[in-house]
Every structure is written in C-alpha cells, then in structure tokens.
C-alpha cells in the first residue's frame, strides 16, 4: 500500500504542474494485469480549475517497466494513438507523454480511460456475450480496415519512423524479429530457424500500399461492451508502417483462439472475418501473402516469448508471465509454426 500511496502522490504532483493548478488529488490507483511491454494503471484525478470548477477525470497510466516481453518505443506508441484521435478508429485520447524516468520510476504516458468496457480475453467468451460475439468480431475487422485506410503521411508517425517501400515491408519485419531471436534465445530454436529460412526463400507479394500496422491486433487489445460495439483499440506498442496483411495474419494466429473452437479471437470464423475486412477495405486479401504473414506471425510470437524468458533468466524482471512463456508458450508457438508450415500433427 505504501508504494501505491507514493505513486499516487508523485502522479498528483506531476498532474498539478501539467494542469497548472494548486493541487490534484489522485485516488483509486489500481494496476491492470497484462500488457506486454508496459505497466498499466487506472486512477482517478480530481482538482479545482482556475474558475473554481471541480473537475474529475478517469485516466490510465502506461509506464515502462525495467524489462518485459518486448522492448518498444513509448514515443512512437503515443504518436500512433494520437494519429487515430477523432477518426473512425476508436482510441482513448492521449493526455501527457513524459520521458523523465525519475518522476514515477520509468518514462510513462497518461491517457483517458474509456469507462464501462470489458477487455479481457476470457470475458468475451461468457454467456452474456453469446448474442453479440460474432457482431463484435465483424466490427473488429471493419475497424482494422479503417486502421489500414488512415493516411499516416499527415501525422507525426513519419517524423519518428522511416517508412519502408512496399517491397521491403516483409524484409524489414523479418530482419527485426530474427535479430530479436538471435539476441534472446536461451536455447537453439530449430523450428523457428527453419521457418525463417522458408520465409526468406518465399517472399510475399508486396502490398498495394504501405499502411499503419497495429502490430498486436487481437482479442485482449480492444475495449468492448455487451451492446456489440468496440469502444477502443489499445496496446499500440508494436505499431509500425508496413503490409496490412500482417495485422490480419497476426489476428488469426492459433494462439489467440481463446475458446479453442477454431474461432479467431474466440469470436469469428476466419473466412467471415476476411469477408468483413474485404468489404470494409474494398481490398482483396491475397491468400499467398496471408500464408506468408501467418508463418511470420509464428516467428514474431516466438521472438516475444523468447524475450520474456531471457529477461526473467537475466533477472531483469520478476513478472511471472515471463517464465510462463518459457515453460509453455515457446513450445506451443513451435506447434503452431509446424502447422503453419504444413508439418504439424
């Protein structure tokens, strides 16, 4: 509890400076379980503004931990959120980005909290979502089409990120994730290495255009309600510019079939999802490209799990989700990769 109080006080001091008010009260600070690369905390802030009006806001803090499942760029994640503010892609409004790690023990950003939503991967499988689960699934892929339609050239993104050419999208991502595996594998990975060789020998067709790629588009990373709609796309920590099919393939990965019934994200049949995406994007999904990005997703997944396992082994983090990756997910990802390569049982 003492740590919670200290963080509440530090946050209150920070917000009073940012809001230029005498005093901010921060209460109800509560850490949310999950988040691949950053600690996520919810809190309520109250203050009196210059006109004497009592203000109350429900906010979310995303703070860099000492180590995690992946290393990502906070400023870039913030820029991707901002790029979709006020568009047809629902995102929480960004409020403050702070690179000074001394304030809360790590750099952080603060955003609005979208109230009354569920986000949990298990919650959407509960009976009260039976009637609307498929509708949420279709909506998920309609929104993905809108993500990919965003003209990123008018945003801050190109200031922070070199856009790849369409022909280079696959190579840039594969080079990155192969280097992640090189750096973090605690044991040799013969299945991931065979997959990487296959990916290099069979490059995908280039996309029609380079788009925003969310990078972790799946159940667990959007906010939904029992009315069947989606109110926020979150966790943009792996967002980049690239081939839009990458997001589709990642969202289809077997690891996210939470109900273990073949439905993608626990919600929707793959072909129905593709149809919803094609209708909303007016783009035909190239099945060869989809297969390539499916195999790639297995390699990327392995890169993430290996990073978590290494960070735990190196004692950079004590988060229990990290050894879980070593004991379970790395082999599960290998099983998925074998099936993607047509070599599975």
């Amino acid at each position, binding site marked *: 509890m003492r740590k919670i109080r200290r963080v509440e006080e530090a946050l209150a001091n920070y917000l009073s400076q940012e809001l230029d008010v005498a005093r901010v009260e921060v209460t109800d600070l*509560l850490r949310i*379980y999950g988040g691949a690369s950053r600690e996520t905390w919810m809190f309520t802030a109250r203050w009196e503004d210059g006109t004497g009006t009592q203000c109350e806001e429900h906010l979310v803090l995303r703070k860099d931990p000492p180590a995690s499942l992946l290393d990502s760029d906070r400023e870039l994640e913030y820029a991707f959120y901002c790029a979709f503010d006020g568009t047809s892609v629902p995102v929480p409004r960004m409020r403050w980005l702070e690179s000074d790690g001394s304030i809360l023990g790590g750099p952080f950003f603060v955003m609005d909290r979208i109230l009354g939503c569920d986000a949990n991967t298990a919650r959407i499988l509960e009976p009260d979502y039976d009637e609307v689960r498929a509708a949420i699934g279709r909506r998920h892929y309609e929104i993905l089409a809108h993500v990919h339609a965003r003209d990123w050239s008018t945003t801050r993104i190109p200031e922070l990120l070199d856009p790849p050419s369409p022909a280079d999208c696959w190579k840039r991502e594969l080079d990155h994730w192969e280097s992640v595996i090189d750096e973090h594998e605690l044991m040799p990975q013969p299945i991931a290495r065979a997959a990487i*060789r296959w990916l290099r020998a069979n490059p995908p067709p280039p996309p029609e255009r380079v788009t925003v790629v969310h990078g972790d588009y799946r159940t667990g990373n959007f906010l939904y309600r029992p009315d069947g709609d989606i109110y926020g796309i979150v966790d943009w920590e792996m967002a980049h510019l690239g081939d839009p099919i990458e997001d589709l393939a990642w969202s289809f990965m077997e690891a996210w079939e939470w109900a273990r019934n073949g439905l993608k994200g626990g919600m929707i049949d793959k072909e129905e999802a593709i149809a919803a995406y094609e209708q909303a994007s007016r783009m035909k999904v190239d099945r060869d490209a989809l297969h390539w990005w499916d195999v790639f997703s297995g390699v990327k997944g392995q890169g993430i799990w290996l990073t978590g396992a290494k960070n735990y082994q190196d004692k950079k983090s004590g988060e229990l989700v990290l050894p879980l990756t070593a004991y*379970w997910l790395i082999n599960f990802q290998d099983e998925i990769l074998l099936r993607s390569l047509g070599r599975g049982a």
Partner: protein
Amino acid sequence: MKPDPPLVLHGIMAEFARHVGPEVQTPFSQGVFGLGVTMLGMIAQEYDRAAARLVEEDDAIVALFEDATYLLTEGELKERIREELQRPRHENLRVSALEQDNARLRALLIDLHAAVEQLSGDEAVTMEERIWAELQESTRRRHIKSRLAS
C-alpha cells in the same frame, strides 16, 4: 521414499486455490496468483520428465547425425558432426548440464537441416523428412498440458 515432487506441487496448487485464492483482493493480485498456481502445475509436469526427454531427444538427434555423415560431402559441417559424435554425452545428469548437451546438439541440427535443404536426391529428401519428424516429436516431448491451451 517421500511424496513425489509433482504430487506435492499439485497439492500446493490445490490448497492455494482452495484457501488462498478466495482471499486475494485486487484484480492484479488475482492475476499474479493465478499465474503462480498455473506455473506450479507446469513445473510439476516438467520435473519428472525433464532428464528423460532430454536424453531421448539427444539420442534421436545423434541417430540423425550418424546417417547424415553418409550424405554430406567433406567440409566444415561434416567435420563438426564427426566431432560431436565422438564427444562423451550425459556424464553429468543434472538437468542444467543435460540442457547444455541438448542445446549444442540442437544448434548443430539447425545447421544440418539448412544444409540438407540445399541438397537434391531421394536420400536428401528422406533425411529432411526425418529431421521434420524429429522436430514434430520434440514438440510432443515438450508439450505442457494447461487450461491455457489444448
């Protein structure tokens, strides 16, 4: 004779779930608790089988190496495989030592697999299929039963 460690670990899981779980208050603490209990179950599965699966896998990879020496032309890879075949194995039966043996063999298997992919002919195709079969088998050996996965 004392109770098997997997039995004890499963017992801790059950007792924690029954008596400690309901007392855990915040969603974050519940998440940590759930992961901890899940990890106990995974460690229980791995504890008893770890040495056996590592030795079994090493033997399977060595059998591939023995046959691959007839397939490969003279060169650095063939020499490394010959050296590996002459090396004593499993002198230290601690799991950490067995994992080091296994890691060395799996690293060499990666290089053999890549080399065989470049070869033509029926024997090369057969060897490649045997390597894939061994990789499939390696995932079966490592498979963890969990409520998180099938």
